[in-house]
């Protein structure tokens, strides 16, 4: 374990300890936040509730659906835009300003379209995640070095073969950034929709617990959410380091 990782763990542990002390001493009132140790204990109780587990599973399923749809659609749309530079030039300003728009305001529109179920939530998560996937796919396509395209021509590959065997595989190497961001945005979209607007899922449970002053339910759920989001993110980081490192390291050095 590197020094950096040890320091990171140390910082996190110290922070938890600090908060624990603040809570125990009363500097942070128990009405505001229970001590971290108590949160963990409550977590155990939560995880034994079938209903809660169901809600957690529901949220995760929605996030996964939004993510998968966003990755597929984002990649295809990005590839399409890369192939049509005129269209791309027109759409590019939207892509760049997209994240300034709070897309969850379109939630009611989706409720009308899909009904009061989990599809509007998935749609919000999808809308948030798809654009970052498009942007990163375009980035991957842009970065194909001209010398690779020239080599393809020397080997007398046709246009289709060049796209299939040279451009797509190269772009795919750089999509991992898009995947990481897409996961993050899918989480944010689904949770935000649940939190503010719907009657289902983890976000809703947190909001409900907040409204009913149930810190013993709210904080553990928040903890679960944080842990899951972080784990997924770190998992993708690790996958990227392990599988892609040997294909992309040193690429930019001569």
């Amino acid at each position, binding site marked *: 374990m590197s020094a950096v990782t040890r320091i990171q763990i140390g910082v996190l542990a110290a922070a938890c300890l600090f908060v624990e002390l603040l809570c125990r001493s009363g500097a942070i009132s128990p009405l505001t936040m229970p001590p971290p140790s108590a949160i963990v204990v409550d977590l155990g109780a939560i995880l034994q509730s079938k209903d809660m587990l169901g809600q957690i599973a529901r949220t995760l399923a929605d996030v996964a659906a939004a993510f998968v749809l966003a990755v597929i659609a984002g990649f295809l749309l990005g590839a399409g835009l890369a192939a049509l530079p005129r269209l791309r030039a027109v759409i590019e300003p939207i892509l760049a300003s997209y994240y300034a728009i709070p897309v969850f305001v379109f939630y009611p529109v989706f409720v009308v379209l899909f009904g009061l179920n989990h599809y509007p939530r998935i749609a919000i998560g999808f809308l948030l995640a798809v654009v970052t996937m498009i942007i990163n796919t375009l980035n991957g396509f842009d970065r194909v*070095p001209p*010398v*690779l395209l*020239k*080599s393809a*021509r*020397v*080997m*007398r*590959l046709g246009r289709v*073969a060049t796209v299939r*065997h*040279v451009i797509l*595989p*190269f772009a*795919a*190497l750089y999509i991992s950034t898009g995947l990481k961001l897409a996961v993050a945005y899918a989480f944010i979209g689904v949770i935000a929709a649940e939190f503010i607007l719907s009657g289902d899922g983890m976000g809703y449970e947190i909001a409900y617990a907040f409204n009913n002053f149930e810190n013993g339910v709210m904080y553990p759920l928040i903890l679960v959410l944080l842990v899951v989001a972080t784990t997924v993110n770190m998992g993708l980081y690790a996958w990227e380091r392990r599988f892609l*490192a*040997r*294909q*992309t*390291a*040193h*690429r930019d*050095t*001569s």
Partner: protein
Amino acid sequence: MREPHVIVEGATRIYPGTAGRAPLHALGPIDLTVRKGEFFSVVGPSGCGKSTLLELIAGLQPLTAGRLVFEGVTVNGDVPPGVGVVFQQDASFPWLTVCDNVAFGLRRVGAPAPEIERRVESALRLMGLQAFATAYPAQLSGGMRQRVCIARTLVLEPRLILLDEPFGALDRQTRLLMGDELLRLWRATGATVVLVTHALDEAALLSDRIGVMSARPGRWLEIIETGWPKERDTGLVERPELSGLTARLWAHLRKEAVQAMGGGASG
């Protein structure tokens, strides 16, 4: 006298202007006949058009004027069969192992699997890459990656091999070693080789003939016969004739190089 392999007549390349740029007369007119099996080098100051000439011969760029014939076929912006190109930049495919990189071209033309295996194996051996067959290019040094590109080119058994400053990014010692290897491959394959390089001694050392190009737009200043025997290697550095050759090249190029840099330097 060996038969002509590549015939270039009045080849000219002018890059068309765009909204922000005037047209650029990059090369020509150039006349050249490269003989079958010969090792021909092109030297010249920066930006003189040597790479452009190479790409015209390869069919990677269209001619603005003139004619180019390879093995009896007119070449103009389309790559004819039988040509291999090694570029200065690393053209290895990072998502494929060394072995898959080398096999790439053969797989695309649908050669049968045992044939592919045989030829790849032999190419890897020829370039000293067997130990790295399952490695990825990103894990190799620059010189090794260039060997992968050369192997990938050779495995397709091209009759004309074009190299555009292939050793540009490598250090001097590696360059000399690669020069030896290049000569070895040239003799082994019997291919015609056209090498573009900015290193005068490298051109003087390796070639049968050297084309000295002027500053842009490139035209021939002289085409020099070296007279070296076919069985040669970089041991030639010991020969006194080499420095005479290099001096002759530099005498031409000194003036051109100054002009290319945009002004009179002190004498």
